[in-house]
C-alpha cells in the first residue's frame, strides 16, 4: 500500500478529535476530580465530551467527499458524512441525558468510553475494507459491553453485560469466520475488489456459508430476531444512557456498515427477492430476518409490563423495518434507511431520557411507575408523548415519514411480485398492532392519576431538559421537512 499517510489524516480527523477528547476527559478528571463530588465530575466530563463531539462534527462537516481514501480502505462519500453526523448527534444527545443518571461511580471513565464507542461508530461509517470494518465494529462493541456493566450497584447490570458480551463474542466469531471465508473465496479485503472478484466468478459453495455467517453478525448488531435475545436484558439492566446508546447510535452505524458491505461488497450475490425460482442470495435471508423481527418484536411487546423491556421489543420490531430499508437500499439508495435509523434513534434516546429522569426521582421500572407523569412533570409528559408517537409512526412526526419512505421504497422494488412488497404490507399491519402497546405507555403517563405515594413533582436537570426539548422539536421538524435529511445523502 503505497498511498501517502497524509491522505489518511484529514479523513480520520473526527476519530482523532473523539479519541483526544476521551483522553482529555480522563486526564482532567485525574487531575481535578479527587476533591469534587460525583455529579460535578460528571458535569465536567460531559461538557468536555460535548466539546469533543462538536469538534468532530465540525471536522466531519468540512471533510471533502473524495471517495476512496488510502487505497480504498476508507471511503468518504455522502453516506459516510451523513452517518457520521448522525452518530455524533445521537451520541451528543445520549451524553446530554447522562446527568439524569445517579449512582455513577466513575463518571469520567463512563463518558470517555462513550467517546471511544463513538469513535468506533464513525469508523464504521467510513469503513470500506473487511479488516477496518471488523476493527471498528469491535471497538464499538467492546466499549458497549463495558458501558452495559457499568452500574456496579446493580447485579442486573453485570448480568446484562455478561449476556451481551457472550452473545456479542459468539456473533463476532461468526462474523470473523464469515469474513475470512469471504477473503478465502475472493482473495480481496477491500469492498470494491470483492465485488469485482465475485462478479467474475461462479457462485462458490463456501460463499453461501460466508454470507450466512456475516448475516448472523449483522442480525446480532441490529437486534433482529432470532438474534435478539440479548436485547431485552441489556435494555433493562444496563445504565439507561448505555441502553440509549446501544439503541440509537450503535444501530445507525451498524446499519450503515452492513448496508455498505452488502450492497457495495456483496452486491453480486444479492440473489432474488422473488420467492420461487431463481437462486437465493442474502436479500431473501434479510427478508426472512425482517419478517421474523416484525412479528416477534410487535407481538412480544404486547405482553411486556416493564417499560425498558417494552422498548427493547419495540426496537426489535423497528429493526425489522430497517432491514426492509436495507433490502430497498439497492434501488432507492440509503436515504430512506438512514432517515429511519436516525429519527428512530432520536425518539429512542428521548424515551430513555424521560425514563432516566423519572428514575432519578424514584424508580421507573414498570408501566405504572409512569402514572400521573402529566402532573408530576408536564414537560416530561409532553416530550414523552412526542417520542412515543414518533416510535408508533404517527404523522406529522419523523417516525411516520421514516416508515412511509421505507415502505414506499420496498414496494417500488416490484410491487407485490417480490417478498419485499409483502413485507411492507406486513410491516404496515404490524404498525397498527404496535400502536396498542405504545398507547399503554401514554395511557399511564397522560391519562392515569399519579399513585398516592408519588405526588411529588419531578425535578428535571437543565441539560436533560434542554436536550429532551430539542429532541422533541427535531422530531417534529424532521417529520415536517424530511428533505433536510434525505438531501444529505442523495
Amino acid at each position, binding site marked *: 500500500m503505497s498511498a501517502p499517510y497524509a491522505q489518511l489524516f484529514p479523513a480520520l480527523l473526527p476519530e482523532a478529535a473523539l479519541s483526544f477528547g476521551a483522553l482529555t476527559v480522563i486526564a482532567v478528571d485525574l487531575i481535578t476530580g479527587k476533591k469534587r463530588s460525583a455529579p460535578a465530575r460528571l458535569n465536567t466530563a460531559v461538557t468536555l465530551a460535548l466539546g469533543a463531539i462538536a469538534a468532530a462534527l465540525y471536522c466531519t462537516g468540512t471533510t471533502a467527499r473524495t471517495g476512496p481514501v488510502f487505497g480504498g480502505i476508507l471511503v468518504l462519500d455522502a453516506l459516510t458524512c451523513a452517518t457520521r453526523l448522525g452518530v455524533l448527534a445521537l451520541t451528543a444527545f445520549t451524553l446530554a441525558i447522562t446527568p439524569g443518571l445517579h449512582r455513577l461511580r466513575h463518571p469520567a471513565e463512563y463518558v470517555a468510553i462513550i467517546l471511544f464507542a463513538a469513535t468506533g461508530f464513525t469508523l464504521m461509517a467510513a469503513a470500506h475494507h473487511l479488516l477496518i470494518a471488523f476493527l471498528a465494529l469491535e471497538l464499538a462493541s467492546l466499549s458497549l459491553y463495558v458501558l452495559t456493566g457499568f452500574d456496579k450497584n446493580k447485579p442486573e447490570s453485570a448480568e446484562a453485560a455478561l449476556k451481551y458480551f457472550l452473545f456479542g463474542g459468539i456473533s463476532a466469531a461468526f462474523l470473523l469466520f464469515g469474513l475470512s471465508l469471504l477473503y478465502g473465496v475472493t482473495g480481496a479485503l477491500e469492498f470494491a475488489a470483492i465485488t469485482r472478484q465475485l462478479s467474475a466468478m461462479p457462485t462458490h459453495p463456501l460463499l453461501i456459508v460466508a454470507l450466512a455467517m456475516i448475516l448472523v453478525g449483522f442480525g446480532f448488531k441490529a437486534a433482529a430476531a432470532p438474534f435478539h435475545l440479548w436485547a431485552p436484558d441489556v435494555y433493562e439492566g444496563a445504565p439507561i444512557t448505555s441502553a440509549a446508546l446501544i439503541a440509537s447510535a450503535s444501530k445507525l452505524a451498524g446499519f450503515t456498515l452492513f448496508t455498505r458491505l452488502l450492497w457495495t461488497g456483496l452486491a453480486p450475490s444479492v440473489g432474488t427477492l422473488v420467492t420461487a425460482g431463481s437462486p437465493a442470495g442474502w436479500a431473501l435471508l434479510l427478508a426472512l430476518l425482517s419478517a421474523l423481527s416484525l412479528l416477534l418484536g410487535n407481538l412480544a411487546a404486547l405482553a411486556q409490563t416493564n417499560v425498558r423491556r417494552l422498548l427493547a421489543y419495540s426496537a426489535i420490531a423497528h429493526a425489522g423495518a430497517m432491514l426492509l430499508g436495507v433490502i430497498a437500499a439497492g434501488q432507492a439508495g440509503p436515504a430512506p434507511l438512514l432517515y429511519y435509523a436516525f429519527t428512530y434513534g432520536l425518539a429512542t434516546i428521548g424515551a430513555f431520557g424521560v425514563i432516566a429522569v423519572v428514575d432519578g426521582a424514584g424508580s421507573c421500572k414498570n408501566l405504572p411507575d409512569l402514572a400521573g407523569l402529566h402532573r408530576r412533570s408536564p414537560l416530561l409528559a409532553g416530550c414523552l408523548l412526542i417520542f412515543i408517537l414518533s416510535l408508533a409512526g404517527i404523522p406529522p412526526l419523523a417516525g411516520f415519514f421514516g416508515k412511509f419512505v421505507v415502505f414506499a421504497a420496498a414496494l417500488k422494488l416490484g410491487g407485490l411480485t417480490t417478498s419485499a412488497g409483502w413485507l411492507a404490507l406486513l410491516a404496515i399491519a404490524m404498525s397498527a398492532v404496535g400502536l396498542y402497546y405504545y398507547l399503554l405507555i401514554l395511557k399511564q403517563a397522560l391519562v392515569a392519576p399519579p399513585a398516592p405515594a408519588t405526588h411529588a413533582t419531578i425535578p428535571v436537570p437543565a441539560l436533560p431538559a434542554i436536550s429532551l426539548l430539542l429532541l422533541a422539536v427535531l422530531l417534529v421538524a424532521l417529520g415536517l421537512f424530511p428533505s433536510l435529511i*434525505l438531501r444529505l445523502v442523495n
Partner: protein
Amino acid sequence: MNALPWTIYLSFAGATLALLAGTRAAAAARWVALLTALAGLGAGLFAAARFVPSRGLQTIVDLPWIPDLNLGIHYHLAADGISLTLIVLTGIAATAGILFSWNITERAGEFFALYLALIGGVYGVFLSADAFLLFVFYEIAIVPKYFLIAKWGSTQREYGAMKLVLFSFGGSALVLAGLLWAYAAGGGKSFALADLASVATHFTRTEQISMFGLVFLGFAILAGLFPLHTWAPTGHVAAPTAASMLLAGVVMKLGAYGCLRIALPLFPVGFAFWQSTLIALAVAGILYAGLIALVQDDLKFVIGYSSVSHMGFVLLGLAAANGQAVSGAVLQMFSHGIIAGLLFAVVGRMLYERTHTRQLAALRSLPLHRLMPFTSITFVIAGLASMGMPGFSGFPAELLILIGTWKTSPLAATFAAVGILIAAAFTLRVIQIAFFGTSEPTASSPRPHLSSSPNEPPALSTLTTTLASHPSYSPITWPERTGAVLLIAATLYAGLKPDILLSWITPALQSPLMQNVLKGGTP
C-alpha cells in the same frame, strides 16, 4: 377560497394557545377554543359567500413539499363544493361542541388543545388534494380521540377509547397499504390524487379490485361500515359529550369523505366489482343498526346505533354512484353531522349531567317534559330531524339517496326505506319513554341496567323518590341554549333550502375525478 387554509392554521394555533391558556385558567382555554372555532366557521362561511361552484376543484395552495426520491409530494390544498359543505359542517359542529363542553374544568387546557388539534386535522383532510397530505391530516385527527375519550369520557372509557383508536388506526393502515401499492404500481412518481387516478387506469383488474378493497375498507371502517362498525357505539358512549358530537358529527364523515375522494375515483374498475357487495353491506348496516337501536336500554347507545344506521345511508348513496345518490350522500353527511351532534348534546350534556342516568327504565319514571322543558323540546326536534321529517335536513338527503339508489337497485332502495321506518320507530320509542314517561313508577317497569357501576346508584324506588322530591335540576345554561339553537337552525336551514348546499355539491360532481365515480357504477 383563500380563507379556507386558515381554518387549518387557526385550529392548530388555537390548540397551542388553549394549552398555554389552560395553565392559567379553564375559562381562558374555553374562550380561546370558542373563538378559534368561530374563526374557523367564519372563514368557512366567508369562503362560501364568495364561492363559485362552477369552477370545480379549485387549487388554493400548491407547493412542492418532499420532492426527493421521486416521492413528488406536494402541499396541495384545493376545495370544491363537497369540501366546502363539509368545512362549514365542521365549523358548526366544532363551535357547538365547545359550547356543550363549557363545564369542563379538569385539565381544560389539554382538553381544548386536543379538541382543536382534532378539528385542525379534519379541516386538513377536507382540503387536501394530495394523497400523502390527506393521510397525514387523517392520522392527526385520530390520535387526539384516544386521549379525549380515555381521560374525559364516561362509561368504560378506556376500553371504548382503545377500541376506537385501534379500529381507526387499523383502517388507516389498510389505506396506507393501498395508497403505497398504487403509488409503486404506478411507477412511483407522485401522490397527487389526479396523477394517481391517471396511472390507475393502467392497472390490471385484479390490482384495481384489491387496491379498491384496501382503501375503501380502510376508510369505511371510520364511516361505520357494517360489520366493522362496532367501535362506533362503544366509542360514542364512552366519549365525553363534545367528543361524541365530533365523532358522530365530523370524524365519521372523514371516512365517508375518504371513500368518495380517494377510493371511488381512483379505482373505478375495482369499484364496479365491489359495488353490489357494498350496497348490500350498506343496507344491512341501516337495518341492523336500526333494529339494535330499537332494543337498547341506554339512551346514548340508541343514538350511537342510530349514527351507524344513518351513516349506512351515506355509504348507500356513495355505492349507488349516480348523481342524485352521491349528492344525497354528501347532503346526508352534512345533515347527520348536525343532527347527531344535537342528539349527543342533549343526551350527554343537557340530560345526563343533571339526571346522572341514561337508562330508559330510570328515565321513564321522571316527567322530564315538565322538569326540563327546553331539553325535551330540543330532543323532540332533533328526533324529528333524525327521522327524516320534511323541513329538516335529513329529509332531502335521504330522499335523494333513495331516488338515486332506486335507479341502481330498486331492491336496495326498498329495504333502505324500511330503515327509515325503523328509525322513526326507535326515535319515537325513546322520545316517549325518556321524555314523556309517567311520574309514577309502574310495577311492570323493568329494573334498570346500571351499566356504569353496579354498586353506586341506589335502588330504583329510592332514586325515583329522591328525584321526585327534588324535581328541580340546575337550569340550562346559556352555552347549551346557544349551541342547541345553532344546531337546530342549521338543520332547519339545510332542510328548508337544500338547494343552496346542492348548488355547491352538484357542480363538484362534474370534475373528471368525480365523473370516474359516476361512470364506474352501473348506470
